[in-house]
C-alpha cells in the first residue's frame, strides 16, 4: 500500500472539514465538520502507524484516544448548543453577534432578528420548562 493514498484521502477529508466549518451556519453542521477533520487525522495516524511498524502501536492507540476525546467533545459541544438554543431559540452562528463591535453588522445576515422577535416562543419555553420540571 502506497502511503500517499491514505495521506491524500485524509488531506481531502480535512479540507472538506475546513470548508464545512467556515461555510456552514448551523452549529450542529459545524460540529459534524469538526468530526470530519478529526477523522482525517485518524486516518493519517493509522496509515503512518502501519507504515512505520511502531512496536508500541502509538498511532493506533492515539487513534483510539482521539475517538474518545472526539466523543467527549461532541457531548459537551451539544450540551452548549442546547443551552444556546434554549436562550436564543436559534443555533445560527451568524446570529450570535453579542461580542461583535456595534455597527459592524454585515449586510445580508439576519442578525439578531430571530432572537429578538422570539417573544412567542418564550411562552412555549416556559410551558416546556414547567413540563420538564414535573417529573
Amino acid at each position: 500500500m502506497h502511503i500517499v493514498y491514505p495521506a491524500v484521502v485524509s488531506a481531502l477529508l480535512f479540507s472538506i472539514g475546513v470548508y464545512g466549518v467556515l461555510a456552514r451556519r448551523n452549529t450542529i453542521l459545524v460540529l459534524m465538520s469538526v468530526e470530519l477533520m478529526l477523522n482525517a487525522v485518524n486516518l493519517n495516524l493509522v496509515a503512518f502507524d502501519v507504515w512505520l511498524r511502531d512496536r508500541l502501536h502509538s498511532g493506533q492507540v492515539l487513534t483510539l484516544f482521539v475517538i474518545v476525546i472526539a466523543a467527549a467533545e461532541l457531548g459537551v459541544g451539544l450540551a452548549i448548543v442546547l443551552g444556546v438554543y434554549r436562550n436564543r431559540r436559534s443555533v445560527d452562528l451568524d446570529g450570535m453577534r453579542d461580542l461583535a463591535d456595534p455597527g459592524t453588522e454585515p449586510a445580508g445576515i439576519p442578525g439578531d432578528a430571530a432572537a429578538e422577535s422570539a417573544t412567542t416562543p418564550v411562552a412555549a419555553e416556559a410551558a416546556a420548562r414547567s413540563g420538564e420540571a414535573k417529573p
Partner: protein
Amino acid sequence: MAEVPSYLSPTGQEIVFLLLGAVAVGAALLVVTTRQLVHAALWLVVCFGALAGCYLVLTAEFVAWVQVLIYVGAVVALLLFGLMLTRAPIGRSADLDSGNRPVAALVALATAALLVTVVIDGFRTAYADLTPGRGAAKELGSSIFRNWVLPFEALSVLLLAALIGAIVLSRTDIRGR
C-alpha cells in the same frame, strides 16, 4: 524502501482502499453541501462507514470496529438527537450556508492543494507492506494496558469530566449561586 512498486500497477488492496476513500470523500462533500440537515447526519454515517472500511484495509481491525461502534453508533445518534432537540426542520432549508461561502471554498481549496502537494512530494516513495494481525484487539489491548496505561486512565477522568459537564450544562434546574 529501496524498491517501490509502481503506481501504475495497483494491488487489490489499493484499489479497494481508493474506492472506499472515494466513497468517504464524496459522502463528506455531501455532508458539507447538502441542503437538508438530517441528510447531512446520514451522509456522515456513509463517510464514517467507508473510513472504517479503510481502516480494515490498512489492517487496523480494532480501530475499525471502534470506529463503527463509536462514530457510526454513538456520535451520529448524538448528532441526530441534537438536531431533534434544536427543532431542526425536516426537508430543505434555504439558509444553511453563511455569507462567507466563497471565501470558505477558497480557503478549503487552498488547504487541499497545499496539503496534497506536500504529502505527494514528501511520501512518494513510502510503501507499507500490509501484514494482517498487527491491529488486532489482542495486540492493541496489550499495548494499551502495558505501555499506555497512564494516558488511558487520564482519558477516563476526562470522559468523567465531560459527562458531568454535559449534564450540568444541559440541565435547567441547576442554578449558580
